[in-house]
Structure formats: C-alpha cells, structure tokens
C-alpha cells in the first residue's frame, strides 16, 4: 500500500495533491475527504483554529492506523495531509484520499481512518475567537 503522510503548517494544496494521484488499472474507486474549519466552535463564532501536534507521536500513530487499515481493506493507496498552526475559517485542515478496487472498501477505509484519527492522533485545536464588533478589548 502506498502511504503519503504530511503534517505541517502549509496550506493544503489540493491541486498539487491531485496531480500526484496514482490509480492503477485494477482500481475502481477513489474516496476523498476534506475537513474544513467551520465559522463556529461550540456555538461561539471564531476566526480560525490553531492546531498543535505532538509531531513524532502523531506520525507514529498515523502509521499504526495505516497498518491496521491495510489489514482490514485491500487499499492500494492512502494519502493524508493534516495542516497545523492557524487555519482560518473556510479553509481545509485535513485532506484524505483512499484508492481501492471497489467503492464499499474505499468509503469504509476512508471514514474509519478519519474516525480513528480523531480518537488517537495527538493533535489539538484551540479556537481563535472572532472579536465581537463594538465590544471593547478586555482589561
């Protein structure tokens, strides 16, 4: 299984990622997931999320997930990019692509990977609040 993993502060360059996609002729399905920063976090408007990672462990935990994924589904390729640092509202923080022979396994593997990532990969986010208009800055 091809594995591409990147955790870094650069904006996610979807076009560059697409240009490096490899689908062999026996593969029938590609599923991509993008996670975008939403305008509200826990009901409060935000400007951005500030992501922090424990980089070495995050990479290790991602590779453990890739190991498990490979055992469960006949996936030919998994590529995952997680942006860290400040990611503005309406920008993607996560991009995942799974290539498999059939759609059922591509969907299942991609969704499982995102679910598990949110359970075990040491990355955290901190809301960057949106200053309320007309509210003076605090003391």
């Amino acid at each position: 299984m091809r594995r591409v993993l990147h955790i870094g502060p650069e904006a996610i360059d979807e076009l560059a990622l697409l240009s490096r996609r490899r689908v062999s002729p026996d593969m029938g399905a590609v599923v991509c997931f993008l996670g975008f920063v939403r305008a509200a976090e826990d009901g409060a408007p935000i400007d951005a999320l500030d992501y922090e990672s424990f980089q070495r462990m995050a990479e290790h935990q991602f590779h453990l997930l890739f190991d498990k994924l490979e055992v469960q589904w006949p996936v030919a390729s998994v590529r995952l990019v997680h942006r860290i640092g400040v990611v503005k509202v309406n920008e993607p923080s996560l991009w995942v692509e799974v290539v498999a022979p059939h759609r059922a396994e591509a969907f299942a593997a991609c969704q499982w990977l995102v679910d598990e990532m949110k359970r075990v990969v040491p990355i955290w986010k901190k809301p960057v609040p949106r200053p309320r208009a007309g509210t003076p800055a605090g003391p």
Partner: protein
Amino acid sequence: MAVKVFFYSYFKDLTGCAEATENLPSGSTVSDLLQALATRFPGLAAAEKSVLVAVGVEYQDRSYVLKEQDEVSLFPPVQGG
C-alpha cells in the same frame, strides 16, 4: 530516577510549562507520576481523569512501570481533523 514529562495543548496552561522533570523511586508507575505531578501542579489535578499518557510515541495506561530515560507526554483528549 529522573523522568522527563512533556505537556501538550491546554495542559501547558494548567502547569505553566511545556516540560518538567520529576524524581521518582525506581519501580514507580504512571499513576505514581500523576500523583506527584498533581501536588506540584494543582491545575493538572482537576483534569486528571481525562489525561492521556504516552511514553515515547506509544499510549500507556496508568499501571505502566516507568524506566529511567522514559519520556512521558501528558495531554487532553485529541481533537485533530
């Protein structure tokens, strides 16, 4: 033995630092470490139930017996994506 401890996410705010060293009797467990840290960093004590613990890059539970040179990381539930 000296055990190095790293804090992530808001645990850095609770402790006021990103890392610390704790001296423990040999044979101490993660649980013993957490107790010692709770005394030193009362802010951390309140969060204790939700603390996730890694030694090196692997998750470990509270019964893990610490070794000299172990690097322990403490952090709240992860929130990637």
